[in-house]
């Protein structure tokens, strides 16, 4: 009896949600769909950079009455799905948002692989896709294939190039030697960056004396740090993911890896990084950055903290938010829910965002972004950028105290 009841309930739930899921929405809102991980391996990152910005943006736009369209203001309503860090789920959720929930616009998912996985779906239905958390070297190819796809975070080569330039300059100025220890996490992201870095470093006259990968989820990174230390490098570069960014830094402190340049990739720009390591984080370099002295950024950081209760990170957060601003301005610029026009609008207009002006180039790429940042006295400052002003002077790291 009990069993039958449960089955019945389950059956009812299925029919009910399939039949009515997403129906009965108020007509005076403009609907956005958002898919990103809330659970699974990438959830940790998405919860820091992705979800809070959506929340912030929606709150701010709605606070001023909603998006201004020709027929009046409409408030934003967001339908959120958890893709569990599974691209099959991401695709399914996007399909569902488009065909069942009939959302007006979609917010790009989280992570390189996921943005690329959903690109065909966005293209098929003519939704513009701002890939705000994707780093890829295939931008020209992708833009050709998916004309409605835009990139705001940057591509692999400039990110590596930015670092290579800094290192090369320091070498040239006689501040450091040219020996680099490079490690990478053996995942698509780390492999791609390390593969891009090898020729670029070589061309910049840098000598990679230690070059190893380590598996995702390595519990003890001390052999890597020790190995790097034994190679006696002048600079340490790690194409790392959040848990290992923390782990490598921690081990470097303990092992006294005394390099003039210490670079870790994702999560270096997280406020938690500065929070955890305090003064030891000083002069650590990482991927991306912002200009925290810029009033727009300052205001954004403050609002982020107030509305979401969390500190924004100093790289992708602002990029995510800026991407949402672009979407917002394009929709308001067109003045109606016409996705083709909005896409065209994005291609041909310039947008004022917290990062400054953004214009997409012929490859739908935002050619202005921060490539390298550095913790300087408790703030993560952009120290190298493509097309952005306000880069601070690079400082050398002197110990971990």
């Amino acid at each position, binding site marked *: 009896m*009990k*069993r039958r009841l*449960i*089955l019945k309930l*389950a059956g009812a*739930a*299925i029919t*009910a*949600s*399939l039949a009515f*899921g*997403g129906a009965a929405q108020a007509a005076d809102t403009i609907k956005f769909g958002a898919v990103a991980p*809330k*659970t699974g*391996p990438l959830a940790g990152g998405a919860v820091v950079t992705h979800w809070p910005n959506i929340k912030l943006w929606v709150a701010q736009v709605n606070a001023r009455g909603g998006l201004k369209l020709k027929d009046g203001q409409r408030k934003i309503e967001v*339908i*959120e*799905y*958890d893709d*569990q*860090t*599974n*691209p*099959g*789920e991401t*695709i*399914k*959720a996007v*399909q*569902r948002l*488009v*065909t*069942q929930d009939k959302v007006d616009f979609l917010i790009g998912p989280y992570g*390189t*692989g996921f943005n*690329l*996985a959903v*690109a*065909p*779906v966005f293209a*098929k*239905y003519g939704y513009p896709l701002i890939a705000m958390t994707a780093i*890829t*070297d*295939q931008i020209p*190819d*992708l833009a050709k*294939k998916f004309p409605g796809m835009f990139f705001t975070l940057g591509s692999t080569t400039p990110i590596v190039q930015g670092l290579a330039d800094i290192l090369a300059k320091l070498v040239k100025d006689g501040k450091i030697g040219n020996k680099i220890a490079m490690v*990478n996490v*053996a*995942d*698509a*992201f*780390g*492999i*791609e960056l390390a*593969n*891009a870095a090898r020729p670029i470093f070589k061309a910049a006259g840098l000598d990679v004396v230690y070059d190893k*990968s380590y*598996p995702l989820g390595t519990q003890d990174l001390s052999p890597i740090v020790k190995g790097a230390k034994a190679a006696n490098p002048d600079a340490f570069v790690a194409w790392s993911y959040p848990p290992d960014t923390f782990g490598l830094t921690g081990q470097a402190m303990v092992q006294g890896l005394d390099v003039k340049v210490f670079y870790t990739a994702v999560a270096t720009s997280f406020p938690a990084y500065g929070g955890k390591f305090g003064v030891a984080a000083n002069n650590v370099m990482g991927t991306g950055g912002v200009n925290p002295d810029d009033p727009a950024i300052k205001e954004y950081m403050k609002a982020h903290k107030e509305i979401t209760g969390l500190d924004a990170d100093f790289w992708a957060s602002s990029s995510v938010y800026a991407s949402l601003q672009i979407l917002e301005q394009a929709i308001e610029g067109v003045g109606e829910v016409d996705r083709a026009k909005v896409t065209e609008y994005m291609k041909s207009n310039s947008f004022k965002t917290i990062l400054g002006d953004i214009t997409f180039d012929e490859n739908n790429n935002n050619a202005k972004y921060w490539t390298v940042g550095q913790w300087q006295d408790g703030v993560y400052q952009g120290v190298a950028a493509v097309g952005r002003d306000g880069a601070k002077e690079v400082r050398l790291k002197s110990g971990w105290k």
Partner: protein
Amino acid sequence: MTDKDWRNFGLAVVGLAIAACLPLSGNGYYLTIGVTIAMYVVLATSWALFSGPTHYISLATAAFYGLGTYVVALGIDDVPYIVLLVIALVVGAVSAALVGLATLRLSGVYFVIFTLGLAEMVRQVVTWVQSNWGGHQGNYVLTDITEEIIYWELLALAACVYLAGWLIGRSRLGFALKIIGNDEVVAAHSGINTARSKVLLFMVSGMVASLVGAILAPRWTYIEPSIAFSPMLSFQVVIMALLGGVKRLWGPLVGVIPFTLLWEAVSISFPNQTLLLMGVAFLLIVYTIPHGFVGLLETYSARFRERKG
């Protein structure tokens, strides 16, 4: 073939024909669900071909699936896609044979944990190789293959798997597997080469999983190890197959469909508690339907017959 066989065959053809029309509905969402269902039907059915009769719970699906995905990812720039599918098939079969030869004497939980570890090991080796010698290759699969094509490929594969399953069920091999599942000692003493039979079937399930991975690779565009070798996949295949029941060829089918729809319903209604509720659903399945829907149906039909008789 008996009348019953013809009837089942007819039903299968009609079912397949109806399923093949799904993309014509023009609704991308239904198609996506269709792809998900087709993928899990193929994986769960081929899994059950091996694990059903032998009672060996294999969690290696992700290992073979990932291999297939990576075959496509590494080769797509240089080799025609269709050739890659064949390579994936061969790679899956060969690696399943190696694994089978090495491990099928393990029993019970050892085999389960071994296969779970295997997926991780393959993943580590593949990423290490890619990291050291892969160059720029290996992450992007940019093709013109649409979801419709993937769906039809999967349906065709499903048809092959059912046909293979039906043929195996009627063959000496299938009969041998049944005997092995009952009593391995008796099987050996009846002249059955138990190791060979098990390895053969394991190869079937391994190469199908590898092929599924290869078919789906273009869908992801960007291949990451966490996408290709997700341990979740192995577990989902097992739970869906067990939910349906592994005693019948069509058992996994009746597990996959409700499970996928349930998952869908949960993700729609509770986007913030999806995992939590899936966990609850998992437990409910384990506690209330221990023998799967097939078991449930058989119990009911037995009761029905009793009442009639």
